[in-house]
């Protein structure tokens, strides 16, 4: 039986194209110190109270340093306490969040800190792309032209073919996330763009342009978790923890074949039995909709959908007691490494049906209220997606990204975005429950975690 786990505080370093001013350990310390200071503790007091840690970073290549996790543990003053490093491509930070949660939920620790980083500026961009591409099969995929933007571009051309998704719909995601980030001082790219700007920026992998794709970053993030006992220990030591508390209400994970070429194309009955959300399964209209899709030739997941994302979402929703995420969630921070993958993820997470992600993107329902995006949006905002600006605008220092989402989610649920950002614009009004979603290359590992404000 898992114990209740609270996400008490977090910190994020400013994500930047390059941080040569500090070593990775010192960049992590910025986020780490912020998380501790937000509990009104000093380092020595926190060090005495914390039981251990989980570290995350994606690539040993970027820093040309093996065992970077222990170097951070050492620098932060956490030795000889327990700790380990997790890695799972782009989902590394999300996995770290969940492993730290598990450490507390299982009873192994009462206070655990998750920290993650990536320093991607130590090599030139195209060498960085090569390193990332080595996270594809080096026998079969990498030698053909290994380039992750190319892989995602192939996925979205199939999505376009299957469902009629358009590049303009994808550009809506870019406009939204870049402009949201205008109000987020932690973000790397804070700009107002138009649909035309997105489409006329340099083509990277057709149809994805430079503004459809996240950037490489140097950065770090940290999250502090505690059990009831851990919370009492921290407060006895002087911690100031705001109420209501933020609880991790449920986690889910999914996986899929490394080579997207190997993914199945299942029939309607298998899809409904194994992959449909409860909400979809219980809707006559949706079952008829999917029957029609399959009659037209759609198969699942193919390369147009992320089965791992759907699996992770379904598991997290079930554990958190969520039936209709569009109605029950107040915001989502999801892994938008590409505008296309944000659209695909709307579908995986059940915000709309498969095939409707493009329309959902352009509808305005995933936008923030109160911001003039310069777009003609037919619907009112309903469920803000990536209010922080997401990976596209914040940047994607891989091992930190999933934790960054966790930090922003904590602040949303605490109602403290205004204090942390120095600007209240991105505070989701009366946020009670949100989701964070972390995703590794072409949908191999995906994590979904639900955070909830305790009442």
């Amino acid at each position, binding site marked *: 039986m898992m114990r209740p786990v609270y996400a008490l505080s977090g910190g994020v370093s400013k994500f930047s194209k390059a941080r*040569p*001013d*500090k070593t990775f350990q010192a960049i992590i310390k910025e986020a780490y110190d912020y998380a501790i200071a937000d509990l009104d503790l000093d380092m020595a007091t926190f060090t005495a109270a914390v039981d251990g840690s989980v570290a995350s970073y994606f690539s040993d290549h970027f820093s*040309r340093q093996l065992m970077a996790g222990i170097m951070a543990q050492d620098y932060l003053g956490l030795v000889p306490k327990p700790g380990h490093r997790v890695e799972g491509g782009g989902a590394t930070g999300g996995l770290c969040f969940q492993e730290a949660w598990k450490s507390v939920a299982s009873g192994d620790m009462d206070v655990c800190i998750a920290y993650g980083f990536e320093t991607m500026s130590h090599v*030139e961009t*195209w*060498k960085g*792309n*090569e390193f*990332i*591409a080595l996270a594809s099969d*080096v*026998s*079969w*995929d990498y*030698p*053909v*032209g*290994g*380039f992750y*933007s*190319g892989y995602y*571009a*192939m*996925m979205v*051309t*199939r999505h*376009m*073919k299957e469902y009629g998704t358009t590049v303009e719909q994808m550009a809506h995601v870019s406009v939204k996330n870049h402009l949201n980030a205008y109000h987020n001082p932690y973000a790397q790219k804070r700009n107002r763009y138009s649909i035309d700007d997105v489409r006329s920026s*340099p*083509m*990277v*992998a*057709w*149809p*994805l342009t430079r503004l459809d794709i996240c950037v490489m970053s140097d950065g770090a993030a940290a999250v502090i978790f505690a059990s009831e006992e851990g919370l009492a220990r921290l407060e006895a030591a002087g911690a100031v923890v705001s109420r209501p508390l933020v609880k991790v209400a449920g986690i889910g994970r999914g996986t899929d*074949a490394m*080579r*997207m*070429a*190997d*993914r*199945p*194309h299942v029939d309607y009955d298998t899809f409904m039995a194994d992959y449909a959300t409860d909400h979809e399964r219980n809707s006559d209209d949706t079952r008829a909709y999917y029957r029609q899709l399959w009659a037209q030739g759609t198969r699942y997941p193919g*390369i*147009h959908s992320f089965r791992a994302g759907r699996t992770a979402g379904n598991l997290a929703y079930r554990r958190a007691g969520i039936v209709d995420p569009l109605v029950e969630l107040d915001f989502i921070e999801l892994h938008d490494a590409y505008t296309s993958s944000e659209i695909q993820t709307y579908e995986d997470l059940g915000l709309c049906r498969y095939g409707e992600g493009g329309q959902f993107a352009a509808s305005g329902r995933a936008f923030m209220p109160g911001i003039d995006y310069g777009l003609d949006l037919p619907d009112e905002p309903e469920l803000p997606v990536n209010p922080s600006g997401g990976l596209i605008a914040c940047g994607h220092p891989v091992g930190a990204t999933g934790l960054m989402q966790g930090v922003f989610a904590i602040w949303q649920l605490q109602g403290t975005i205004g204090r942390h950002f120095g600007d209240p614009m991105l505070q989701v009004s009366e946020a009670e429950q949100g989701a964070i979603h972390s995703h590794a290359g072409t949908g191999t590992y995906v994590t979904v975690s639900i955070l909830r404000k305790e009442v």
Partner: protein
Amino acid sequence: MPELPDRREETQGGFIVHGVPFPIETDPDALAFLKRLTPIQIEQEYAITYLHSYGQDSPWFAGAANRRLLAAREPESGYTYATPRGHDMYSGIETEWIDITSRRARIHAFTVCHFGSEEFLPETPYVLAMIEYEGVDTLFLSRLMGIDPDEASIEWIGMEVRPRFLRNSKLKPTDVYFVPVGLPDGAA
């Protein structure tokens, strides 16, 4: 009017410095000033040659070197992998080799890479495609030639293609690539 470059290309490398500025005396003020210096960055080389084994997939490469396209089939269910796997992911049974060189093939999805990882930058723009074969359950990632990368269109999806092999095998999956059916030999 075409957009003119307004920045010079950045490359790594530079002068080697002999003599690094540093306070002559390490008095408290001078030591405190060290906190205000910009960081020193150096270059570190990292190159290595791996002996990579294709293991149980090796016959596929031998086949491509001999202008044969192999696939892996689960002997009982018949489930067939275009990109070979030694064991079926559903039954766990060892697969057997089949020859699919002459099967009909189509473009399932594609992209045109105008940028890429460092190794492939000189080849841009190049077309990547997921190929679907008749009677084969999974796809195959390959290069597509004989098609104008500046005319990319979703209509390419579904186009019938056929394999073409390098005369001089490199023992890489790129020993085979695809061209549109109907393209005369020698046109690509």
